[in-house]
């Protein structure tokens, strides 16, 4: 029984949330929805940051692209949400590609700055391209309609969000276990080694950008459903940093990490509402404490303690390459 739970933890989590939706109030349901939305975005960030080891500082911007594209398609062209949401993901992926292609030319941490600059520019466009984005006034988002039924409240949108989150999780698992996922890990650990084992590094990097942006775009589209209204402020630097916190606290390069991270970072501020202690300081310190003391995040910790099952894709690569060892091995190979 316990073993069965251990190995099916994510499906069980979805079933539990589904069951819970019959007993929650609007407030809790809203937070569950928001949490699932953040899971989707964090999974995307995890793919590029945790698995491919690329520092992309632009997930707020990708979310914005997704949110605005789906909202505008629905508001201005009356497109069904079933079309608008994937379109939002694709639009974000396209933009992700287009900044990914030049960005692969800059190595390592220059990427952090390029992507941060990109986010600033997206913010500026959202604020200033008023005929389309309505600038800082924001735009309200129509509720999706399925078979004549308008899904407007949190209990109804929950089903869409839950389904999308489950699909995206399955997709993430598929990617991680595929050749592409292994290529991600290989370029993270050593680009030279990856190249010499026949991986097209440039293409893999662009794909990492595109896939990661796709997740953020879909997440942004779902986010707009929870809010019914979006404006540029929803997608600022703070949003990006929060996504980073989720990945790091939950556990980078683990499928379950984004779930843990999104759960904690959505609920903790709410539980501490009355204390009003969880402000920026707590947020910042949480990030620092985790990168120092729990670098593998809670998922890594639970896996190491044997509480969670080892994820086959991550155990294969864990700690295999260390900088000095690269040198040492390089030397002894010659």
């Amino acid at each position, binding site marked *: 029984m316990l073993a069965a739970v251990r190995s099916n933890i994510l499906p069980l989590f979805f079933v539990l949330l589904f069951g819970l939706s019959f007993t929650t109030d609007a407030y809790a349901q809203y937070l569950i929805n928001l949490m699932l939305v953040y899971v989707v975005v964090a999974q995307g960030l995890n793919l590029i940051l945790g698995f491919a080891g690329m520092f992309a500082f632009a997930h707020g911007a990708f979310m914005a692209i997704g949110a605005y594209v789906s909202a505008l398609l629905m508001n201005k062209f009356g497109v069904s949400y079933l079309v608008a949401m994937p379109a939002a993901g694709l639009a974000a992926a396209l933009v992700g590609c287009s900044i990914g292609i030049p960005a692969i030319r800059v190595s390592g941490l220059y990427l952090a700055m390029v992507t941060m600059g990109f986010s600033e520019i997206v913010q500026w466009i959202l604020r200033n391209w008023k005929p389309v984005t309505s600038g800082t006034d924001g735009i309200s988002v129509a509720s999706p309609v399925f078979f004549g039924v308008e899904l407007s409240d949190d209990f109804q949108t929950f089903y869409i969000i839950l389904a999308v989150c489950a699909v995206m999780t399955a997709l993430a698992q598929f990617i991680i276990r595929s050749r592409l996922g292994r290529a991600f890990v290989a370029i993270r650990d050593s680009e030279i080694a990856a190249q010499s084992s026949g991986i097209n590094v440039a293409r893999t990097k662009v794909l990492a950008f595109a896939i990661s942006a796709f997740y953020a775009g879909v997440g942004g589209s779902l986010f707009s459903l929870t809010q019914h209204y979006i404006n540029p402020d929803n997608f600022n630097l703070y949003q990006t940093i929060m996504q980073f916190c989720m990945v790091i606290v939950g556990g980078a390069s683990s499928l379950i990490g984004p779930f843990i991270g999104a759960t904690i970072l959505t609920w903790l501020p709410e539980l501490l509402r009355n204390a009003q202690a969880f402000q920026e300081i707590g947020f910042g310190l949480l990030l620092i404490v985790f990168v120092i003391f729990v670098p593998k995040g809670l998922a890594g910790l639970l896996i190491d303690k044997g509480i969670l099952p080892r994820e086959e894709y991550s155990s294969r690569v864990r700690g295999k390459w*260390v900088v000095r060892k690269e040198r040492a091995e390089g*030397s002894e190979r010659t």
Partner: protein
Amino acid sequence: MLEVSGLEAGYGPQLVLKGVSMQVPKGEIVALLGGNGAGKTTTLSAIMGLISARKGTVRFAGVPIQSKPAHRVFGHGVALVPQWRELFSEMSVLEHLDLGAMQRCRRSEIGQRIESVLEYFPELRSHLHRRAGALSGGQQQMVAIARALASEPKLLMLDEPSMGLAPMIVSELGRTIKRLNETGKSILLVEQNVHLALSVASYIYIIRGGTIVKHGPTVAFADERELFQSYIG
């Protein structure tokens, strides 16, 4: 001078050295031979304190140094010339010598130190103000050795100094190593070049799979080919 016993070390979860024991007596040249991945560089890194030893002891002049960081080990008089030379590519040759001497002598003595080091490498004199990155491979190797010598170490460790050098320069290198030894320096030479090792070392250790598999005075390994086979095989 240097006593290593039961040394275990590695990277991350991987153990590379599985109990290495060896000695470098004062004033001797000792060679450590081994194939690719045998743990030669790891041994030097562990002695130098670049990676931390998990088990075993390293004593230098009777003092345990196995848990000390590299700069402290250096302070005891151990200098390493790494395989990849690890030069400061944007700095001049003179600055390299300066930095080498700086930590182990008074400011007023630096000039004198540099002068004495340059006696071994007269060729460097004409390149003192050039960037290290702009030098040839042989010259870079000289700078790396000279930088280490500037600290007047008691033990000099050389990690495959012959690598990538032309045969002419290798034999020149052999002569320099011998001259250094004649001034009383203990030397630990890590090599794949069996010929060079046999021509300068007085005692030989062979490492394979992270342990010392054979050792003895050089005369016992007179046949080069047999020696080569023994660590490859």
